């Protein structure tokens, strides 16, 4: 039961971590949530997608474990055409996101290295990063690395949001001063 807890927390996460740190995040842009998606689905619970109901499909869509096109009624039936278009637009950022839902925007990044230093997974691969120092050479297992003045994501599979036990870590998002890092969902 306990091992499963992080999953539960992740799915029902109310973003308490980012709000309670005293830092107002993501206020300009509304974060994508399950309700926004659910409202645009057929809501018939027809199970064609293979999920028990539309809500379950929504949650998996947010997790990126299913694809929107698996909900065939949405595209086949005329009455949902408008909703389908809206939905496609709404979840477009999800496609941009890597496995763990992290988006890194080059235009905003200033290469400050906060993400490199704060990421706990980076520290396990290259301990010197947690002490503020940059790495000497590109480590094959590193997540964040500042190269040519911009942060790059190398091995996102190491992210704690991805590797079991999946935790709702969003330290990098919180520490990025320019909001170049965004964690969806």
């Amino acid at each position, binding site marked *: 039961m306990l091992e499963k807890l992080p999953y539960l927390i992740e799915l029902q996460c109310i973003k308490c971590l980012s709000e309670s740190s005293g*830092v107002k995040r993501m206020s300009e842009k509304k974060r994508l949530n399950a309700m926004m998606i659910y409202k645009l689905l057929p809501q018939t619970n027809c199970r064609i997608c293979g999920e028990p109901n539309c809500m379950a499909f929504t949650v998996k869509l947010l997790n990126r474990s299913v694809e929107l096109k698996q909900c065939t009624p949405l595209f086949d039936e005329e009455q949902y055409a408008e909703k389908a278009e809206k939905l496609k637009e709404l979840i477009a950022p999800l496609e941009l996101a890597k496995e763990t839902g992290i988006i890194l925007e080059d235009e905003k990044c200033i*290469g400050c*290295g*906060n993400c490199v230093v704060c990421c706990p997974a980076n520290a396990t691969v290259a301990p010197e990063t*947690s002490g503020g120092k940059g790495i000497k*050479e590109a480590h094959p297992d590193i997540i964040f*690395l500042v190269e040519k*003045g911009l942060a790059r994501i190398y091995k996102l599979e190491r992210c704690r949001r991805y590797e079991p036990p999946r935790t709702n870590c969003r330290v990098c998002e919180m520490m990025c*001063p320019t909001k170049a890092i965004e964690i969806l969902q």
Partner: protein
Amino acid sequence: MSKEISDVICPGCGVLCDDITVNLKENVIVSNYNACTKGNTKFLDINANRLLKPTIKMNGTNKEVDLDTAISKTAEILLNAESPFLYGWSATTCEAQRIGIQLAKELKGLVDSTSSFCHGVSLSTLLENSWSTATLGEVMNRADVILYWGSNPIESHPRHMSRYTTVPRGIFRQAGKEERTVVVIDIRKTRTANITDRFLEVEPNRDFELISVLRSLVNGDRPDIETVANVTLKEVNRLLELIKEADFCAIFFGLGLLMSAGTYHNVSNLLSFVAELNQFTKVVAIPMIGHYNMIGFNHVCSWLTGFPYGVDFRKEYPMFNPGETTTVELLQQKEIDAMLCVAADPVSTLPYSLTSYLKEIPVITMDRQMTPTTRISKIVIPVALSGIEVSGTAYRMDSVPLYMKNIISPPDGILSDEMILTKLLELVKEAK
């Protein structure tokens, strides 16, 4: 042939990050790890607007000359001047600064750095205050309260927070950011304040009052006011409690404090406040130096002449009188009649009312790239980029000297500031 050099020092700003890894291909820097966007341009755009040949302006057009001609003509101009002025120095090595000060002495001229209207002024408050300070490494290992006053490191010193103050884990701060409280005091909410725990918005030009109220609270007074500089007394008290209860508090003050009303009195007041706080706990203050070796000039000048900047050798002994022997006043009073400008661009950094005078006197500029100052100069001597093409010493913002490597060689025929100044010094000595 490609090569990787690690532990290179970045000459991008006063943080002097010493952990950059640079990738070279045939004497060209192709990429680097760890430098921020600001530092990255230093490494990769090294040849942008690059000057390659010395020029002398004759009848309004720039004529290319060889290096020896340019240097001997420079020596001639400086020797013929009554009050030659040697200016700049914040973006070159201590070795070059040392020769520059000797040259000013030989010429019986004046020497000043860009710090005289910048953080050098903070240094001169040292004359009236004690200064409790620490190295950035100590801050990283010990500090649990960090205060940025009038400074926005995310824009000006991008890696300051990640490398030394806020994010990293230190010996006594194993949890990193979790164990630190970071406060920003500024006139507007900056990007730095995006990631700090507290932000106090102070009314512009009223920092002095805020510091004074903090000082009176430290000394046990109860000022009969509700707000000061738009900050409520409750918040001021909260800040003071936070500092007093800290194990180690580091205060970084920037140009925002120095350039608002009161100028160096603000810094002086802040340093007194820091000294008073030390009866409760360890508190240190460190200036947010911009140019990578600005504070280096102050050190070199201090050990050579006894004064940190703005030194007048016209009476054959060093004289220091800020407000008389410093750049702004010298230009205002039109006291100088020739100027040698090393590693600085006064035309774009100083107001036009001051720099318009530079069109009336011969200006000699030593720079790596074309700038507004090279455009008005009589003689332009191209130089190699210190810290990347030339090795040498620079002082980090906390006055720790670091030795910069030369990682690539400069273009053919281009010498370092130090070499050119040495040649000038020899010519000047010969002429006497």
